[in-house]
């Protein structure tokens, strides 16, 4: 088929891999911004969620935030980040994309960290307190490890969503792999659109598999089975982008 041979040619042409608009640089931009946004979002979402989960306050807020997050389309978040970024004097490109990705990653991580800590068996916590553990020791030694599977699953789900949505950054003049898709559309170049689609899809699947692997390595062995069932709920709590 002619179309497929054009696609193969695109990938075979070394010139398409190097330089500012090359596949390597676009992938690096995409992964870099996604990772940076995830890091910032984790720092914002996880500590307060751990604290609230530990004290048992703010449950209604935790549930509401994820429901609202699910109803607002990620496309709308990217679009709304643009006027916000410009009002803040941050301009086009990197900042609106970054703001949108952080906003997108917050709800699932916040809610699942909160729920993860809340769902730790109260008897286990009581036992820790009875042994003379301080509140901090209970949080770091009991609640955090026991909540880790749910938290890590949420990080994975949020990361896949962030990678997916970073594609839309091309609409607010940012780089990343979305450039191929958006530029391809505006130039009517189906080969470029297709190439972009394949690369983004691959990156999302690789992210999912990689973080799934990390999860399996990081979760305490005794918890793996018990939490397999709960994971389904975490994924269902997050929308696709």
């Amino acid at each position, binding site marked *: 088929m002619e*179309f497929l041979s054009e696609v193969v040619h695109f990938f075979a042409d070394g010139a398409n891999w190097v330089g500012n608009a090359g596949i390597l640089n676009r992938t690096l931009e995409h992964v870099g911004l996604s990772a940076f946004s995830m890091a910032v979002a984790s720092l914002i979402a996880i500590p307060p969620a751990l604290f609230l989960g530990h004290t048992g306050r703010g449950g209604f807020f935790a549930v509401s935030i994820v429901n609202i997050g*699910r*109803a*607002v*389309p*990620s*496309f*709308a978040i990217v*679009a*709304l980040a*643009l*006027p916000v970024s*410009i*009002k803040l004097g941050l*301009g*086009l490109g990197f900042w609106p994309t970054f703001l949108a990705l952080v906003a997108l990653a917050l709800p699932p991580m916040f809610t699942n960290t909160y729920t993860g800590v809340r769902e730790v068996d109260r008897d286990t916590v009581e036992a820790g307190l009875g042994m003379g553990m301080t509140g901090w020791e209970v949080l770091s030694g009991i609640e955090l490890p026991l909540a880790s599977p749910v938290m890590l699953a949420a990080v994975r789900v949020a990361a*896949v969503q962030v*990678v*997916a*949505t970073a*594609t*839309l950054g091309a*609409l*607010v003049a940012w780089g990343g792999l*979305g450039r191929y*898709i*958006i530029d*391809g*559309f505006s130039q009517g170049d*189906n*080969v470029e*659109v*297709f190439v*972009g*689609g*394949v*690369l*983004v*899809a691959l990156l*999302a*699947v690789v992210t*999912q598999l990689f973080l799934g692997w990390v999860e399996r390595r990081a979760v305490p062995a005794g918890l793996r089975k018990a939490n397999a069932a709960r994971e*389904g*709920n975490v994924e*269902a*709590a997050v*929308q*696709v*982008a």
Partner: protein
Amino acid sequence: MILAQLEGQPLVRWDWVADHLDDIWAATKEHLVLTGIALGVGLILSVALSLLAIRYRKTYTPITWITGILYTIPSLALFSILVPITGLSVLTAEIGLVGYTLLILIRNIVAGIDGVDPAIKEAAIGMGYTRLRLLIQIEVPLALPVIIAGIRIASVTTIGLVTVAALIGKGGLGFFILQGLRRFFTTEIVVGAVMSVALAVAIDLLLVLAQHALTPWVRAKATV
């Protein structure tokens, strides 16, 4: 220049909204139709695949695996891969939208039916129920809360994803978001976003009411 234009304008220009009520209504209808087709076709496929998975247990893992990968692929990437084949068409949008409903729906249908109390099934079989009658009269009604929970998630997700289809020219309310971005006109972005959220909330509410009416024996307990 353009940025300055964006800085000076109010968040929503109500006169624009008032002038474009017809367009907004038309886009809302398109949004609903796209969502409705995706959910309808998705539900039919999911029921078929779920029945397969329930009857032949071994198929469940591959089914969730494949629909899981489909679910992982970003919508814009999937549309982009399909465009060279099916063009900038409703078909392209719907293939993607239907694809994303499958994992959620299948998982909830199977979980719902698996969750039916075995004692109830035993009793029905003891009373001479055939497999089909057991499914239709006992298992499906009892699984309905979980199934509807799945439909709720799928519908909210689909309504959000329809907006992305604006990039392939079939996006319902997403059209305003895209136009707003291209023209640096926040009113359009806000109208698209707010209407799409309102639609999601309204449909979700309808589904809650439907569940309430269909399962009078379950009260106050919602499973998600």
